[in-house]
């Protein structure tokens, strides 16, 4: 199943939007943080995990999803949030800690919740697995349409909770897909240092479900594999496990010196940057004209600019609002 022309344009648009968004955040993040780097300073305080390079996984999977489908994401959630259709203005405002943010500043960039499109993320490794499995259970019990996708990193498969949730999804035959984004690094620990097998897709055998590894950070190949897994889940045939090779072009967090990376690795990854690659492919395939792609890029940049402007101009969160919304209204 190859993406249609329209789907290819959607994928490219969301990849570019995500990249422009991360670039904007990266620039603003350092405001107020130099010459001395202090994480607490500037308009965007706190940790920041950017998703540059990992866009193909988000768009290849989310191209098959509708707002009613459920996604749980990780501490590195922006590309997935954008591909899932999270309100970009409110998301930017949340990252700035503004009153107009998704949660009014209570969550921050690792805790983005958009109920309108069933998106949530979390700062604890593999923690999204249980809730996604539970949402899948909810749909099955209610006889309602929709699948649940948990995005996790390749380091997450070594969490006990990951195994528990995979087994639960399989033993209850739920409409659930686990998508492992394999960027090769758990902060500074290389995949081969942490895992005894090269492909986490092999772990699917432990649950009696299909597993597939997709090499090359290729949005088309990810689209195809995700399409099969999601169609299978929609048909009531149960969960799947996908592992997608991807590239972390950013550090683990903003400010990460990345001294642990082998010399030259980063340069090689930038040469394989999936965004220019997709642009070339769209043109080579005749799937888009230069003018069309230019328009997509301009519109994406404008969309990001508008979201950043909205965030910057919004009111700060009111300090005393910290004491509200602990419980449901």
């Amino acid at each position, binding site marked *: 199943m190859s993406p249609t022309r329209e789907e290819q344009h959607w994928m490219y648009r969301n990849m570019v939007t995500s990249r422009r968004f991360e670039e904007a955040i990266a620039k603003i993040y350092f405001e107020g943080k130099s010459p001395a780097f202090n994480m607490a300073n500037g308009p965007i305080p706190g940790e920041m995990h950017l998703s540059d390079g990992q866009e193909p996984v988000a768009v290849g999977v989310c191209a098959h999803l509708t707002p009613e489908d459920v996604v749980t994401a990780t501490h590195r959630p922006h590309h997935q949030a954008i591909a899932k259709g999270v309100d970009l203005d409110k998301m930017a405002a949340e990252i700035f800690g503004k009153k107009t943010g998704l949660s009014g500043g209570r969550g921050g960039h690792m805790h983005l*919740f958009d109920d309108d499109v069933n998106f949530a993320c979390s700062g604890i490794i593999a923690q999204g697995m249980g809730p996604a499995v539970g949402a899948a259970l909810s749909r099955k019990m209610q006889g309602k349409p929709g699948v649940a996708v948990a995005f996790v990193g390749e380091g997450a498969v070594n969490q006990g909770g990951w195994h528990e949730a995979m087994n639960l999804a399989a033993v209850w035959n739920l409409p659930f897909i686990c998508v492992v984004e394999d960027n090769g690094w758990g902060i500074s620990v290389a995949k081969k240092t942490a895992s005894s097998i090269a492909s986490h897709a092999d772990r699917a055998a432990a649950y009696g479900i299909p597993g597939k590894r997709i090499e090359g950070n290729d949005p088309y190949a990810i689209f195809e594999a995700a399409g099969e897994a999601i169609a299978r889940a929609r048909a009531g045939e149960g969960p799947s496990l996908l592992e997608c090779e991807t590239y972390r072009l950013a550090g683990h967090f903003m400010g990460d010196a990345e001294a642990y990376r082998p010399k030259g690795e980063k340069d090689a990854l930038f040469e394989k940057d999936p965004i220019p690659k997709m642009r070339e492919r769209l043109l080579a395939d005749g799937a888009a004209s230069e003018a069309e792609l230019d328009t997509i890029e301009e519109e994406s940049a404008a969309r990001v600019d508008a979201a950043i402007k909205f965030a910057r101009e919004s009111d700060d969160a009111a300090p005393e609002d910290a004491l509200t919304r602990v419980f449901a209204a």
Partner: protein
Amino acid sequence: MTKSNERKLTIARAMAEATAQEMRIDPSVFVMGEDIGPLGGVYGNTRGLIEEFGAERIRDTPISETAFIGAAVGAAQDGMRPVVELMFVDFFGVCFDAIYNLMAKNIYFSGGNVKVPMVLMTSTGGGYSDGGQHSQCLYGTFAHLPGMKVVAPSNAYDAKGLMTAAMRDDSPVVYMYHKGLQGMGWLGTEAGATVHVPEEPYTLEIGKAKVVREGKDVSIVSCGMGVHNALKAAKTLEAQGVSAEVVDLVSLVPLDRDTIRASVAKTGRLIVVDEDYMSYGLSGEIIASVTEHDISVLKAAPKRVAFPDVPIPFARVMEQFCLPNPDKIVAAWDEMQAA
């Protein structure tokens, strides 16, 4: 009420009845946990449910607390009202991330845009030599962390009303039932917990304490099993001419500080009975609630009868030495007089 109208139930039966009644009117309620299906729960609180509702809504789970509590959060956010069981509260160690980082925080992280209507039932308490990983209360541990309501019934009437209220709440409720009150003969049940329970559904307000015995000389504040110890001590004290008031907290979060303060304002003396560990916990919180509000109401320094800060020992004599009991409460009164 005449004797013939009386409908005495154990806490276990009251919990199961409340759950069944709610499941009949609300299709979004379902139960999952370990051994809650054909076995009916290790403590009997899901007995009979699978026969009526089937295995789809009464789900035995794998031994995977992180996954099924996390799944309950996801299902709750998606429109269901899961009731999940953590068989022993002591097992929180394998799944606390799903409880306090997920269940308790998602309403806040979403700015109130998502609801997490779920009940986490869990058994507490010792006294039957089950050792240090199957006998704790951990009230303070759960009540300390924001985002979870916490209830701890002392009798079957309250247990039913709290269970129904918990299932109807849009926030997560931790429902801590004491094994020694469950009405399971093999656990050495406290008879006072088995009381009249109306058949029709009703709710008890979460966050409201009860004065279960009126008195004027001292307030004894507790929850769960501690209430029964307090009532027994009050009887002994009465024989000595001392009028003890007993406050059953019923809910730990929200804590009904007004009822505690009003009682102590009346009696001027406070003894807190807590089967949880002494330090950094419930007993200190109750005392602080009084003293930081108005220390002048106290005629004597408050006293605590709580579990000492040691893991719960196995040997019967050792465990009984550590547990609160009526004699220790009476002794606390005596010390208060001697001071």
